[in-house]
């Protein structure tokens, strides 16, 4: 049975997609059959893998689930790593989910895929919407990239409150520090304050702000596919190892 890991944040531009792509790649390199579901209509993850959705694929097919979804899974250039590319019509996914009046629609769809994979990563669009609510229920873990500023702490608190209000399992939420710039005083202060705070449970390994990660838009490949020994590749690998340990220990 696959473990489902959603990369989620209320905010955009915090490194969700970068983390999805590189953590999933690290999982595959470690020998696990891995699937990325690109749920963001912007399709950034799909773009990084040079994958386009089939013309006929869209939100309706996604919601039909089963074969319609399986048919549209594509192999990436990397062994053991597949992707379900995003379609532009996902931008109206909220409407469709509103019609089905179900907060578990996506959970059902991903459950059908869990037999074929060890890990399923969900790259999510920002905001709290019906889609995100579905995702919170479908995912075993909700991994949240946080840029260490006061604002992102606030959004994390907001997310925790939302989980509490909706009676969702708060233990699913696993934040990590993203785009960290150690030369900045603010980053250091915020991290020092939050790293040990038991109510947040931050992962120990941060992802630094690195030009190499920014350049992924040009290379269109996971950082470790270029040079597995680079600082960025190492950072994601260590973050993955920590996350994988946490998941297997339970």
């Amino acid at each position, binding site marked *: 049975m696959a473990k489902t890991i959603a990369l989620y944040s209320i905010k955009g531009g915090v490194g969700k997609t970068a983390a999805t792509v590189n953590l999933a790649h690290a999982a595959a390199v470690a020998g696990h059959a891995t699937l990325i579901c690109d749920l963001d209509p912007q399709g950034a993850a799909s773009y990084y893998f040079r*994958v386009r959705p089939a013309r006929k694929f869209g939100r309706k097919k996604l919601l039909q689930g089963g074969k319609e979804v399986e048919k549209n*899974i*594509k*192999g990436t250039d990397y062994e053991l790593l597949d992707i379900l590319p995003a379609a532009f019509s996902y931008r109206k996914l909220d409407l469709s989910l509103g019609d089905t009046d179900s907060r578990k629609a996506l959970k059902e769809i991903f459950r059908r895929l869990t037999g074929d*994979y060890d890990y399923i990563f969900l790259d999510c669009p920002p905001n709290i919407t019906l889609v995100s609510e579905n995702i919170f229920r479908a995912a075993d873990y909700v991994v949240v990239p946080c840029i260490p500023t006061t604002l992102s702490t606030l959004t994390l608190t907001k997310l925790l409150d939302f989980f509490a209000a909706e009676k969702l399992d708060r233990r699913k939420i696993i934040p990590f520090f993203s785009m960290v710039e150690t030369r900045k005083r603010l980053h250091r202060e915020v991290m020092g304050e939050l790293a040990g705070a038991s109510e947040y449970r931050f992962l120990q390994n941060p992802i630094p702000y690195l030009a190499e990660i920014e350049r992924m838009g040009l290379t269109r490949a996971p950082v470790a596919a270029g040079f597995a020994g680079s600082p960025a590749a190492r950072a994601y690998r260590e973050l993955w190892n920590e996350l994988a340990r946490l998941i297997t220990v339970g």
Partner: protein
Amino acid sequence: MNKLKNAKEFLVTPDLAPEYLPEEMSRLGYRVTEERPSISKSRLFDTFDWRLLGSGLLLARGRDGYQLYGADDGREFGRAPGKGGGHKFSHDFPAGPLREALTPVIAMRALLPLLDLRARSRCWEIRNRDDKLVLRCRWRQLEVRRVAWRSDPHPRPAKGGAAPEPLHTLVLEPVTGYRKPEREALATLEPLNLSPVSRLAAHLYRHVGFDLEAGKKTVPQLGPDWPAAKAALEILRHQYRVMRLNEAGIIADLDSEFLHDFRVALRRSRAAMSRIKKVLPASAKHFRSQLADLARRSNRLRDLDVYLLQREEYRQMLPACLQEGLEPIFSVLAEERGREFKKLARWMKGAEYRRIMAKWGQFLASYEPWQAEDGVAVPANALAPVLPLAEEAIAAACLRLLEHGRAIGPDSPDEALHALRLDCKKLRYLFEFFATLFPSEEITPLINRTKKLQDNLGAFNDFFVQQEALRHFLAALGRGGTKHAAGLAAAAAAIGGLITRLSREQGRVRRDFAKTFKAFEGCGNRKKFCPEE
């Protein structure tokens, strides 16, 4: 998911240019890049009866140690370090996925080194206009060589030592979700009329001269109007081949199954001679007693093999505190087995054994009663068609089994069940010999019923025999028949524990007898073969 899952491999002729397909793909508008060529060397292993191949598995040892794959799709089941070799049985491998997958398939059989493979491979990546990988194609040159080792139990290949020609293959590895490039590649290859290889390993084994069918235990197909003597000879020749095939492995002591298969063939030979009556000349009589002698000479060794194979099972039957008591017993058994093995091996290497087998083989090759000249006496049934004889023999054996079985009640002595087991066995032999004469849908249900009955009676007998052997051992302990006096009490306790378990099991099997027999008796197809008026 696993990209190799849908890989297609084709045999190609040596004159096909490796670059042909990549160039054609490039002409179709794909971006094609060649990766660095690679060379890999590995050695393939399997059991004497091809158990891995038969289960779709492949065990190879290469630079990174042992790897167990799916023979068709290349899916990896597990790895183990290969340092130092000496991995003969599954329990020689470290615990892990490889051993877990291996054990149920090969059981007690030894892994034999079979062939060395050197694969030179050129690989091209085919990419679309987004520079996305959509197909890989690979050209492979495979140099194969049979592993030469002193105790190789396989028959030598007919043609002499020259290394076989290298083989060439073309592999297409599609990427999930990209069907079109693969279709285009297949269309390009279409005019070349290539033959796909579904199981490359089998192909390689044959290429170096292995006969994958040689050890097949199935009995040959008979014709209903054959003279009975011809049918009997066909059966006997097959058993003879199986015996000869297993000799080398017995003498080299590779695993216990060589002797077991040898003895099964021996028993079937003897059964065929006594079940198919009046087809062999009086001059063949002495072969029967010689085969019986052969069986006798290996009885003790087989018994000891069976005890030693049961070691783990026996340990599991006992609580942990009694398990250690078994160890001195097993070491005594292992010592005795060593002596028995030497005796048998020496005899089988000797002139007398070889003479007997040669004579028996000559007789089987030359006996042709249907060619007999006028006036030469031919055994009464030799020329009669086999089908009516088979029907008659099956009906008679079935009837005897029914009569004796019906006479058994809950209070009948154990001996009655032992006797019934022999009746059952006789019927089983007839099925083994003659099943190919009857429509499968008629005879198979009856064979299955008989098998179930025989399993029940066999288990009953087994539990009895094991208890007898243990009792015997207990008595020997009492007489100081073991050097391990210190472990005496522990050994006695362990034996006591085992006998208790075994007799309880025997009782359970005994209670199942009535039901199993009823099922046989009531089997609709049974009435077809043995109508009882």
